């Protein structure tokens, strides 16, 4: 990875992690949606700096959709019955998860080699998606379908209940 890509990688990493932290601490759905969008922009930049341009484009669109959903006027507050102590325990567990995974990342390494990609490569990824890993693609398609049907049904039930 050359210096330009490395700078892009670290800047994108800062944007994505910073955006994630903003999601945790900013109040209001609009600001939270913007934070998700910023985090998604950073993640797309990470993909681009890792020569995964196509995944970056897909992620950019998907995270924009997530930000719109989270910032949309349809947003409803659903308070959790879980108490403060349990939420604090969950936050501490998240810190523990970070420590364990960071240790694994620090210890984990394997043989590096020259990357010969370097282009968007939609045709190659499409061949893998629809030929080699068609089952996984179909599973994600089924998930999207179930999500859209579930969301539509939930919206209809909620509108009918008013």
């Amino acid at each position, binding site marked *: 990875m050359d210096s330009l890509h490395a700078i892009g990688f670290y800047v994108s990493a800062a944007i994505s992690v910073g955006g994630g932290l903003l999601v945790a601490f900013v109040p209001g759905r609009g600001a939270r949606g913007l934070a998700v969008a910023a985090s998604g922009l950073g993640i797309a930049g990470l993909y681009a700096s890792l020569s995964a341009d196509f995944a970056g484009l897909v992620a950019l669109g998907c995270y924009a959709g997530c930000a719109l959903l989270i910032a949309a006027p349809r947003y409803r507050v659903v308070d959790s019955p879980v108490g403060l102590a349990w939420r604090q325990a969950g936050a501490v567990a998240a810190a523990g998860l970070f420590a364990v995974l960071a240790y694994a990342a620090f210890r984990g390494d394997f043989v*590096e080699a020259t990357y010969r*990609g370097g282009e968007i490569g939609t045709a190659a990824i499409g061949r893998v998606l629809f030929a080699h890993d068609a089952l996984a693609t179909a599973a*994600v398609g089924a998930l999207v379908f179930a999500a859209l049907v579930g969301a539509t049904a939930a919206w209809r039930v909620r509108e009918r209940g008013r």
Partner: protein
Amino acid sequence: MSAGLVSVLFVAVALVAVGAFVATWKRDLMSALAGLPLMFGGAGVAFAGAARFSAAGDPKIFGQEVAALVAVAALALVALGVGIAGRGTSR
């Protein structure tokens, strides 16, 4: 300046941990839902990084494929969560 596999995995770990933190810390379940794409993004970055730095011979695009699928799955799950969200007041 350079970035290797360990740097990529550190960023991926940070994203997963921040997502887990958001999911557990926010009292509002809809806000907690925003942690889901962060965790999925961390997983995708780890896959893309492994594909980037383990490429030997022909370009390995399995990691990119999984990263794209994970992004789509995150969007679908957020849409499902927003749809399933119960009745409440708009904030």
